[in-house]
């Protein structure tokens, strides 16, 4: 029995509030005679839990991506948030509300700080899916050690109110039940078209359930020029909603380095072969552009990065972005 193998090491972090368990994917070290790797840019990559019970994520997709990024030369970490997976404690009651209000940010900030100190990293790129993306945005706002964000299907609305029993309030439950019925589906179809119409003519007004604090954190990070890569899964049944990302990009200003990719043929977890491959390919190119491990000339660097700035990339094929309702 060993805690370290050739490519991985098991780690425990004491965040002050909680003890969390994680896995470190060792960076493949290409250093050797003639190597021109620059240690200064060897940022770490940290995966935060979504609402997935474990740090492996659905279909063990986070394990796959972490292995890939480590092979590219980036030390990569996956941790179980407090109350999840092998970490201590229980998940917070009304977990989605807790995360949506930035409840995991303080622990995630402590994790980032500890990993940077322990592995002598210049900074950390934080990766999150759904609720993990929400935690990643809050963490980026809380620590300057976050050097970039990779967000998969983030959501920008507040979840429905939760009753004392930890379930949605009666009105929401009734609404959910009716909307699944045949009549509900008919009404929802017409309602969807009405929503599209309403959203189109009120593009600058945030919906009443918008998570304003989260949007402000993301706008702040984008305005400050933090490189941000966002993946959206394009599925048929996502309801058309307010274009939160368009809204953010509109406010972020000229320094913004936000790239949005819509991925067809995958689901919300990006765990099928298409989702895995697309996230891997674009994330590796993006990491290489913003945090290159090889020294290159200023012109080369500029050219590489020009492919990953919001000015030069068409964000999505659609005018309005579909977003998921929960993680």
């Amino acid at each position, binding site marked *: 029995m060993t805690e370290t193998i050739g490519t991985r090491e098991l780690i425990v972090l004491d965040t002050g509030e909680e003890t969390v368990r994680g896995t470190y994917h060792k960076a493949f070290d290409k250093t050797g005679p003639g190597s021109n790797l620059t240690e200064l840019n060897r940022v770490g990559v940290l995966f935060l839990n979504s*609402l997935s019970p474990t740090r492996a994520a659905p279909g063990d997709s986070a394990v796959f991506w972490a292995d890939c990024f480590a092979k590219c030369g980036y030390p990569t970490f996956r941790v179980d948030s407090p109350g999840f997976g092998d970490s201590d404690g229980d998940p917070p009651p009304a977990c989605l509300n807790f995360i949506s209000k930035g409840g995991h940010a303080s622990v995630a900030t402590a994790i980032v700080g500890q990993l940077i100190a322990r592995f002598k990293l210049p900074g950390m790129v934080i990766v999150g899916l759904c609720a993990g993306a929400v935690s990643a945005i809050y963490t980026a706002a809380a620590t300057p050690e976050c050097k970039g964000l990779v967000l998969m299907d983030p959501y920008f609305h507040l979840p429905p109110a939760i009753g004392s029993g930890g379930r949605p309030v009666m009105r929401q439950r009734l609404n959910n039940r009716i909307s699944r019925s045949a009549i509900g589906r008919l009404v929802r179809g017409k309602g969807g078209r009405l929503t599209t119409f309403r959203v189109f003519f009120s593009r600058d007004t945030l919906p009443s359930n918008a998570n304003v604090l989260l949007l402000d954190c993301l706008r702040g990070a984008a305005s400050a020029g933090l490189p941000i890569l966002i993946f959206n899964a394009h599925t*048929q049944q996502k309801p058309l909603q307010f274009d939160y990302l368009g809204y953010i990009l509109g406010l972020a200003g000229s320094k913004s380095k936000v790239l949005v990719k819509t991925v067809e043929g995958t689901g919300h977890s990006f765990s*099928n072969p298409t989702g895995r491959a697309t996230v891997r390919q674009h994330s590796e190119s993006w990491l290489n552009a913003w945090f290159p491990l090889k020294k290159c000339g200023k012109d080369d660097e500029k050219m590489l990065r020009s492919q990953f700035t919001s000015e030069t990339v068409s964000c999505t094929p659609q005018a309005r972005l579909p977003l998921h309702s929960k993680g």
Partner: protein
Amino acid sequence: MPSQYLTKAGLSEEARYFTVPDAHLYTVLHQATEPVARVLLVGPLASERHFSYPPWVRWARYLAARGVEVLRYDYRGVGESTGAFEKMTFGEWKEDVELLADWVTSRSPRLPFVLHGLEIGAILAGKCFHGGMGDALLMWSPPSSANQALRASLLQWAGVKQLLESPENRTSAAEYIRQLQQGSAIDVQGYQLSGSLWSDSFDVKLPSSLNDDMSASVAYKRPVSIVKLGKSASPLVPPFRGYLETKDLNWLYSSNFDWIASAVAIPAGRPK
């Protein structure tokens, strides 16, 4: 950064890798103060592992708090263990159980050893018990064959996909099964289910002598318990509802701990 730590409840947990042919298994040892027995938890496979994980971990902690040392792990190619899921066979997963059971029984001092499996894990634990391992066997919801568990997982996944896909892109569960029968691999909740694993799964069954716990206990001269878990035990079993809640399953844990205690004669007076 040692991989061992004390939980708030004062329990020591240690995560380690265990070497098996061509892979490393991720294991977590839940240590007990002055242990009186040892249990190897043989969990469900792939996507079921994902949903059942929180109550499975809580069960391990429940046992450790009562003087039972617990080892739980991920199968080769699943979760935190290394290896490619799509290349694995039931033979390799059975070997995982055997190698870990050997490791547990080699620990000192020698203590009563219980094999405990859930779903497909129950079949694999049962096969090892049949081969002579373990002083007692506890099985939660063993399916009639591994195929029954894979099929249930596939049907659930196909149902979810029906909801997400447009009518022209929908694939029925029957069509997925046809593809598997033709030897193609399909994606089920992020795992590549191969045609060969599907066809092999029909033959992965409990030995017939383990179909009934009363007669099995007599035949093997070692205690055997089979517990069929209903929806109230979700998310340990389908429909996996409430996997983010801290669901109170103490009713299940306490009755099964009592069975383990009687099976391996844990002295009275241990904390319950």
